[in-house]
């Protein structure tokens, strides 16, 4: 099966250019992202004070992050009080090892997994499969992507890029059902397979939308109900969570549930919200006998320390992706990162390395739509500007770029050099110009003239001002 998005270029600019000129991608993403953005705009005014509520959500997270050591310690103690196990992982490799060993120690046959972006971040499935374990994604979108061997292109609707005809062909090939592109029939076919898997699974893996410090509760939301199955049926349950997911008390959870669902899909609340507090208790009929929480750092403590701490407030609703004019044009895969879109352009370089994702902070026109959409008011445009400056400081931008800006800075800070530069520029621009327009510029200037002409530089203002003054003086003399 061919990859649906023919994006193979190594660097972001080429991937973005390829995606932006692929009309099918542009159409699919524009429709799906715009649709969800519209739903969010319709849903938010249901709150009597939408902006105050978003700022409240931001303040609760700010307080929690500022005291993360205290809250994390409280959370871990409470999980243990309820008979759960807590593991700490410095990075993805460690987290993958921990989960692999939990599965092996319990001789887990089939593992059913609920959707989790942090598991994508650390490539958990890959690690489990490499250890010979059988792990099955159970969110319909993730299940389809797993069958197809593809990566998510959106953090909430992972297969936003995939047309139904491709799902039909995939199911015909992999599940042996007659071809259909009817979403209801395709969903029923997947239901049949997944239902038997829920029944047979030994182990469930879930992420965490929120973790409550006071009670040791893990909160997950799913519309499909697969999160409920994964956390209720298997005898073993593992929750993998980033360390920033905490809120102080259960009473704070409603604020985020309201905002998350409205921002992500325009719902009042997600269909199912599960609150899981430890393994099943003595005498309980249902629930996991064994419960593990794996708390992941993987670059987060580094973000906590610096000026980008606010990015850890993110609740992964995807609203900034849906609002972003760049994401809508190029889709999620062009970013080539676990987290695409505006929030991804901030956290991908921060969680991994600035060198790996040096291009992403520039994947933005600074229009501010993401800040306007964000339910926890992360100032993504400002963070992206600061990241651009970090990229330059760390020398990840091209040499020509850095020299160019050095020259610019020099010219702009001296009157003489400015005038010299402008005179030279005007003279240079006149060469080969027609009717006052240049059709082609050399070097970096060519990026501009590839799409539009550029006017030749007019006489500078200070020159024109001086001329005008002279003219007025002359007139004054005449009148006298």
């Amino acid at each position, binding site marked *: 099966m061919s990859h649906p998005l023919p994006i193979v270029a190594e660097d972001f600019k080429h991937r973005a250019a390829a995606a932006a000129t692929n009309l099918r991608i542009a159409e699919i993403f524009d429709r799906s992202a715009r649709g969800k953005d519209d739903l969010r705009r319709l849903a938010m005014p249901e*709150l009597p*004070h939408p902006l105050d*509520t978003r700022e409240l959500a931001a303040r609760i997270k700010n*307080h929690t992050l500022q*005291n*993360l*050591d205290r809250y*994390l*310690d409280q959370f*871990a103690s409470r999980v243990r009080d309820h008979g759960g196990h807590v593991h*700490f*992982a410095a990075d993805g490799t*460690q987290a993958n*090892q*921990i989960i692999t060993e*939990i599965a092996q120690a319990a001789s887990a046959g089939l593992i059913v997994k609920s959707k989790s972006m942090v598991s994508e971040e650390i490539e958990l499935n890959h690690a489990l499969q490499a250890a010979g374990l059988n792990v099955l994604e159970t969110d*319909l*979108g993730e299940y389809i992507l797993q069958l197809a061997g593809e990566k998510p292109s959106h953090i909430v*609707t992972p297969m936003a890029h995939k047309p*139904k005809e491709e799902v039909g062909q995939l199911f015909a090939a992999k599940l042996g059902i007659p071809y259909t592109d009817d*979403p209801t029939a395709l969903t029923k076919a*997947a239901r049949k397979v997944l*239902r038997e898997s*829920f*029944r047979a699974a030994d182990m469930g893996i879930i992420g965490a939308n929120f973790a409550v410090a006071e009670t040791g*509760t893990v909160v997950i939301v799913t*519309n*499909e*109900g*697969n999160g*409920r*199955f994964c956390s*209720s*049926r298997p005898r073993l349950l593992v929750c993998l969570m980033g360390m920033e997911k905490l809120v102080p008390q*259960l009473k704070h959870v409603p*604020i985020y*549930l*309201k905002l998350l669902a409205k921002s992500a899909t325009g*719902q*009042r*609340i997600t*269909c*199912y919200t*599960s*609150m*899981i*507090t*430890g*393994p*099943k*208790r003595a*005498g*309980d*009929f*249902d*629930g996991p006998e064994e419960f593990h929480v794996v*708390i992941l750092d993987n670059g987060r*403590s580094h973000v*906590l*320390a610096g000026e980008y701490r606010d990015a850890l407030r993110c609740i992964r609703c995807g609203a900034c992706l849906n609002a972003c004019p760049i994401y809508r044009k190029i889709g999620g895969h062009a970013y080539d990162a676990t987290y695409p879109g505006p929030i991804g352009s901030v956290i991908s370089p921060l969680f991994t390395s600035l060198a790996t994702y040096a291009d992403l902070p520039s994947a933005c026109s600074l229009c501010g739509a993401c800040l306007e959409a964000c339910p926890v008011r992360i100032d993504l445009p400002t963070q992206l500007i600061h990241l651009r400056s970090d990229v330059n400081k760390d020398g990840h931008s091209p040499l020509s770029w850095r020299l160019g800006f050095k020259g610019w800075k020099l010219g702009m800070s001296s009157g003489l050099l400015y005038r010299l530069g402008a005179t030279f520029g005007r003279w240079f621009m006149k060469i080969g110009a027609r009717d006052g327009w240049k059709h082609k510029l050399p070097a970096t200037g060519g990026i501009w003239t590839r799409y539009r002409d550029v006017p030749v530089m007019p006489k500078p203002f200070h020159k024109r001002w001086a001329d005008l003054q002279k003219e007025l003086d002359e007139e004054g003399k005449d009148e006298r």
Partner: protein
Amino acid sequence: MPSESQTSFFSRITDALAERGEPVELPDDLEIARVIDATEDLVEVFATRVEQVGMHAHRAAGESAAVAKVLELVEALAARSAIVPDEPMPARDAIIAGLRSRGVGLLSPDEPDAAFEADVGITGVRMAVAETASMSVVGGGKHRRLASLAVPAHVALVRADQIVPDLIDWGRAATADPPANEVLISAMSKTADIEGILVPGVHGPGTVHVVIIE
């Protein structure tokens, strides 16, 4: 386990927070997020919003009317088997007797796979939320987590006095020692993963009936 020690994990966080900045108080103005308050007709708001998300609301005057409604729904669903967990719920005995007399097979809630086989699951709720059309169903004891999940149709019984106005009220009612499992059911199971087209009943029930006892 190759787990990092809690001490070294926490030392990175403490170092990162060396400059915590101006202390941010934990806000307590949660009320600004309130959508529904107690002055509204909660049964009306709840029933309307249950319908808006695609579940079905039925208002019953009293328990015997509720039992009749449940039996009528079971018949309309053409359910031949049912699971009724051994948990506190309104009129449980009368419902069971009614199902028996109509020849509906009652699957033993003690059998772990019963919910996978039953045509309908009938449960009570701990609390309901008018704002979000949510029903809180708790696990623990003889509650069956799957009786409202693995079945194709779920019938929930909600007493009018169990309805609170807003999700904030649900949050405030939570104790510091919650049950091992609680779920807020706020719609039927659904997906829109394939081209954004809504399909109900992807894993869990595609049909949810809410019988409100006034």
